[in-house]
């Protein structure tokens, strides 16, 4: 059986009285594209944020390459995300005051890369994702598709082994959404990274190798990696 890259097992998480996750499990294999789908409020974004180490589950475990994420401190999880994960959210969530290239440079500068080297690398990723034209534009001057490409460049610039994308096309029109998905998947196929994707759009889910459906905080279907 293929060893999963990341395993989330029996996760429970409640926000006040609302139980977002009630024993949800999911695994992702190296190089695999996994889609988490389900109706609104089913807990798919919460599961993704727990798998990415952004949220800490109240019960259950998240294991990445043999390490328990839920045992790590907040800062250690952040450093792990910075070095080994990429994170793309629905609206890009770029730093509004920084230009596209500066946004992409941020993870590298936090890793104490040389400014010039960081800029060169960031420009390279923007070019690769088809966003070189907006390198010096600020997020407010970009279209939704451009901003999402920049967010992807920021997520990929450190060479992550696993990319988490929460509704990456949710704020885009159909054509832009398809373009963004194609750019993301062709890039991760080249780098060999895995992707965990949250979507409620069947067309986006169709890009995935496997789909886990969530309902009321529980995963249905095939949460585990098949042999």
């Amino acid at each position, binding site marked *: 059986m293929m060893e999963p890259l990341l395993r989330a097992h029996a996760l429970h998480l409640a926000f006040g009285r609302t139980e977002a996750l009630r024993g949800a499990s999911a695994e992702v294999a190296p190089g695999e594209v996994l889609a988490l789908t389900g109706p609104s409020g089913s807990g798919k974004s919460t599961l993704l944020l727990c798998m990415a180490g952004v949220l800490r589950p109240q019960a259950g475990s998240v294991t990445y390459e043999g390490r328990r994420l839920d045992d790590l401190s907040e800062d250690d999880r952040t450093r792990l995300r910075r070095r080994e994960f990429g994170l793309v959210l629905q609206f890009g969530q770029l730093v509004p005051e920084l230009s596209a290239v500066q946004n992409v440079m*941020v*993870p590298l500068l936090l890793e104490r890369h040389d400014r010039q080297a960081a800029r060169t690398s960031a420009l390279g990723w923007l070019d690769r994702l088809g966003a070189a034209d907006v390198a010096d534009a600020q997020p407010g001057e970009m279209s939704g598709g451009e901003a999402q490409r920049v967010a992807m460049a920021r997520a990929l610039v450190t060479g992550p082994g696993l990319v988490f994308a929460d509704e990456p096309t949710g704020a885009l029109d159909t054509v832009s959404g398809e373009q963004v998905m194609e750019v993301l998947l062709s890039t991760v196929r080249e780098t060999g990274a895995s992707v965990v994707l949250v979507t409620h759009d069947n067309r986006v889910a169709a890009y995935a190798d496997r789909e886990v459906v969530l309902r009321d905080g529980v995963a249905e279907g095939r949460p585990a990696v098949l042999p």
Partner: protein
Amino acid sequence: MIVLAGLLLRTGGWLRPLLVAACTAVVTALVLVAVAMAMLSGRPDELLFDVVADPGTRGGAAFGTVLLTVPLALLLHQALRLGNAARQRRLAGLRLAGATTREVRLLGAAEVAAPAFVGAVAGVLLFGVLRVLLGGGQGGAFLAIGGTSHSVGLVPTSVTPPWWAVLLVVLAVTLVGLVLGLRSGREVALSPHGVSRHQRARPPRPWGALLLVAAAAIVPLAVTRSGLVAASLAAITLAVLGLMTLAPWSAYALGRLAQKRVTNVAGLLAAQRLVTEPRPAGRAGAAVGGIGLVAGGLGGLFGDLFASGTLEFFYVFSVVLVALCLLGTLLVVSLTLAVHSAESLTDRRRSMSSLYALGVPAEEIRSSQLWEGGLVAVPMSLFGALVGALVMGVLSGGGIMSLLLAIAGVVVTPLLALAAVWLAVALTAPVARRAIDPENLRTA
């Protein structure tokens, strides 16, 4: 990290760092003036105004100079909140890009510390300028009245604070700015998926009243000749601290009261704002309360001087000087309120524009700003002026002229406070116009 901090400083807008630097510059200069006054011993060999030259009153002059930094610290506190929502989104964006909470805190601190330090250093230069303009040496500040030349030099030039004292003041002022900056973001948690507000803080409590009671208890001591200076300074310090800590509760209580009594839309909007966020209006209220306290006392003092026929240059100029300081402070309060209003309107632009879209006139929304400031500033200044007049009445032993001028002080101060609120509303008129733009419904 340093590169990133520099990048954020350059791209984060200029108004906030400018205000922070301006505040720390003036605070540093004022503290250095007080240090220079404290360094004088005996009667100096330079022509200074008697309040500074006389060893008996010099301590009070230095203390008053330091007190002038209080409203500036309140403005600094408010300025640090300017653009807070955008700043928090920026820092949350950095968390998403992989910055740890500690790194975000450091970057946030650098955003405040850098302008605070630059301002503090500029304050040393400002101190130099004040020495030239208001110095007591040859070619210093003089005022010719009726053929007689009077020295109005306020900044000693025969002594210079040593380098280590200057360094200490610069670092201390920077540190104060840094601490206030770190406090300004504590109500929210920044995570990679956005900004979330911590559970709402409990409403303010009236503990400041205890300090006011303590100040009142000291006043009888101040009347006795032996304890006059020390007890007066202690009473003033306690009264100022009491007003500052009581003011947020007062704003909250006045907001609650207005919620029950006021029937117009502007008043209700203002009352709701005061109840949900009483601290900014409270801070401005504290400052006008302090102004009222001194103005009330000043009215009584001037009346006492008038009645006793001792209207000499020394007394008149002292009163004018304090009055000028009060007006300057009122201007700072006005700026503080303007900064708060601008920030508050920008934060609430979606709800403001929806009110406008629902048919609430723009004028009503603007007058809600006036209500918000006025509901706190007018009663606080009135209260301060009454206390000041009462204390001065006790100290001076009363007299009809003293009473009349104290009443004048009590009447004029709330009007001046209202003028300060009006000025703040006028200054933020362009922000108010943008806040009700229906476009906000789509984009904000």
